[in-house]
């Protein structure tokens, strides 16, 4: 097997790390929470950082009319299927394809990941803006518009008494490394191809 194909093989397998490690973590800090509230987002589930964190995030957030974080969202079915399909595709390419196919897989993964991130953003936006009109507490921005409570997609943001942090976790690293590796496989494949021809 060629060196580039071996790299492609690894690239195809790396995203499977998403089934082992969380994709993202959102943390909420406040003075009365010396142990911050936190939530992991996995490829197929939400989970507590400490026991009952999501229940307590829901309890806090209902004051401003945010929806309860559900047990499951449709994405939890689509994302795992997507990863499994792209991995199989990647494996086929690694065994059968040449370096041009590696680039196609790389582009496919970039597109799909961007779509995933955009979907995540939409979900966050909806979660932070589609508020219950009967909410107990209503806050407006300095310009008079209704305040949203959207957590950051990436980074740190102050929301009322909370400081929210949103950062990728190990699962994302595996995905990112897989994507990067497929590009390297493409470069290596291209180089060897030139030497041979």
């Amino acid at each position, binding site marked *: 097997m060629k060196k580039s194909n071996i790299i492609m093989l690894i690239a195809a397998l790396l995203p499977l790390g998403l089934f082992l490690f969380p994709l993202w973590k959102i943390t909420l800090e406040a003075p009365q929470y010396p142990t911050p509230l936190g939530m992991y987002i996995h490829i197929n589930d939400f989970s507590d950082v400490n026991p009952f964190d999501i229940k*307590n995030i829901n309890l806090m957030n209902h004051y401003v009319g945010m929806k309860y974080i559900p047990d499951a969202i449709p994405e939890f079915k689509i994302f795992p299927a997507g990863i499994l399909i792209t991995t199989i595709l990647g494996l086929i390419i690694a065994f059968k394809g040449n370096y041009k196919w590696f680039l196609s897989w790389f582009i496919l993964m970039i597109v799909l990941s961007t779509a995933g991130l955009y979907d995540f953003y939409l979900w966050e936006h909806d979660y932070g803006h589609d508020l219950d009109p009967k909410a107990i507490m209503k806050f407006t921005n300095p310009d008079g518009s209704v305040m949203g409570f959207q957590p950051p997609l990436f980074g740190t943001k102050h929301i009322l008494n909370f400081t929210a942090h949103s950062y990728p976790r190990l699962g994302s690293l595996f995905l990112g490394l897989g994507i990067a590796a497929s590009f390297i496989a493409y470069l290596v494949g291209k180089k060897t191809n030139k030497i041979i021809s």
Partner: protein
Amino acid sequence: MKKILNISIGFLIIAFTFTSCNNGESSKSNGALSSNAAEKVYVAPGEHDEFYAFISGGFSGQLSVYGLPSGRLFKVIPVFSQDAEKAYGYNEETKPMLNTSHGFIPWDDSHHPDISQTKGELDGRYVYINANNTPRIAKIDLTTFETTEIIEIPNSAGNHSSSFVTENTEYVVAGTRFSVPIPQKDMPIKDYKGNFKGALSFLKVNPDNGEMSIKFQILMPGFNYDLSHPGRGKSHGWFFFTTYNTEEASSLLEVNASQNDKDFIAAINWKKIEEYVNNGGGTKMPTNYAHNLYSEETHSATSTMIKEVLTVNPLDVPGAIYFLPTPKSPHGCDVDPSGEYIVGNGKLSADLTVHSFTKMLDAIANKKHDGEAYGIPILRFEDVLAGTVKQSGLGPLHTEFDGKGNAYTTFFISSEVVKWKLGTWEVIDRKPTYYSVGHLMIPGGNSAKPFGKYVLAMNKITKDRYLPTGPEVTQSAQLYDISGDKMELLLDFPTIGEPHYAAGCPASLIKANSKKLYKLAENKHPYAAKSDADTKVTRNGKEVHVQMTMIRSHFSPDNIEGIKVGDKVYFHVTNLEQDYDVPHGIAIIGANTSELLIMPGQTETFVWEPKQVGVWPFYCTDFCSALHQEMQGYVRVSPASSSIPLSWSLGD
């Protein structure tokens, strides 16, 4: 009468000389010392204390939890008395905890807390504490700081020489202070002598969950059994009890029980008696006592009456019990960390008497007896004596050890703590207390491994030490640094009830195991409502059961109708929170029990018997959230003849 007067005047004069001399000594170094002391007890905001101190509440019947060195009060744990703050003894779940053979007894006098031990060292799992008045022993679970067991002691009266644990918590003892007729009967009090008995009870502890059961009771001669301590190390397997009133007087004891020059320390080989009992020895005697257990799963207590107790006649186990003569009505009975020395403080003696365990075994082996009392051999004083601490002070009471070869004894009459050396019996240092000190405590000073950094003195009188609060002024404790050669007074702090005795423990042994909440999923209370969907109101004749939930910031249901005058309404309220430090409370107008204070995941119940027609509010009593004030509801009460059906709702 004149003689007594002379003696007390004598005491007063000597006491005065001692204290005044001490006062002079302390004022010399006051300035520099106090600034240094402040630093040593300062625990910065957000920082934790190094030690937990469990200080008994004496006649409040409770156990308080303080931090050392700061002296800050963290919690009062209700044990033998009802507590309106926590609904203990008021709610239906904990009422059975206070059941006894005399019925519901919602008060007692709690004296001696002791922390469970493994291999002679504190393990921080449980605190055991005695009730003096209606004899009981309680177990407090240190994962929740809640009382989870109370066992009544039959045939006992004035349960004072307890509740001390053996070095692997094999046993907790409950020794009687008063001797009484066993079994109880109607008889002339003047016939006390020879007819009353003192029961020393050995409670076996289940190593897995700390639960107690009375394994056997030794029926001793009718003396008063004052205090006790287990042997440890080389003397493990023995228990020592001080006695007074070996005269067996029944009236004017201050005189009549102070006639003998020497009373006894009873040395009891409990392993030998255990063996005798395990081989079928002892006599089963009909009796009646309560065993109350609290379950963390059902959040409820049950009370079981036990009808039998195994008694042991000391004469049936020869070689298991000996008397060690000890001068002048000894009070404290303390064993040093090595287990070799047994200190018996004759409270009417100026000297401290220390017995040697090795010498005691030797005297027993060589049968060097000096007569007997009711068939129990008395060893010769000179044969068991290790040494005396001469002219150490007035009114010695209790001794603890620092693990560095020093002992610290309190002197009630001369109001001081005296440091002396084991083996050489020389006095090294003395410091005044303010005033009239009883027990003292060194964290772990009651084990094979003392943490000899601090000594806590517990005083009976404070007089001018604090702002006055009318005729009743605060009780107090005083903290001394004992890490150096000389003791240093660091801090005065007020305490609840009577700070009778205390047990101290490094915080690290306990705080990591502390529970933050009860898991709702594990709640097995028969009337728990684990979600709003489970809430309901049901009627069974005149009994109505409301299964209610609470969460920030509402009750469900919050409107209830169909209740009638003359109903007995049980509110079973479940806290749905699963967050640390978010309890909720509930109380209703006209309720004659306490409010409930319900921890996350817990269910508690109170009974309300509405006497008047109307629409009556209930509300959350514990400030829980920004909308705490809105956490409220109404119950509509209709006439007894009304036909309004039960209904309940939340929201529109």
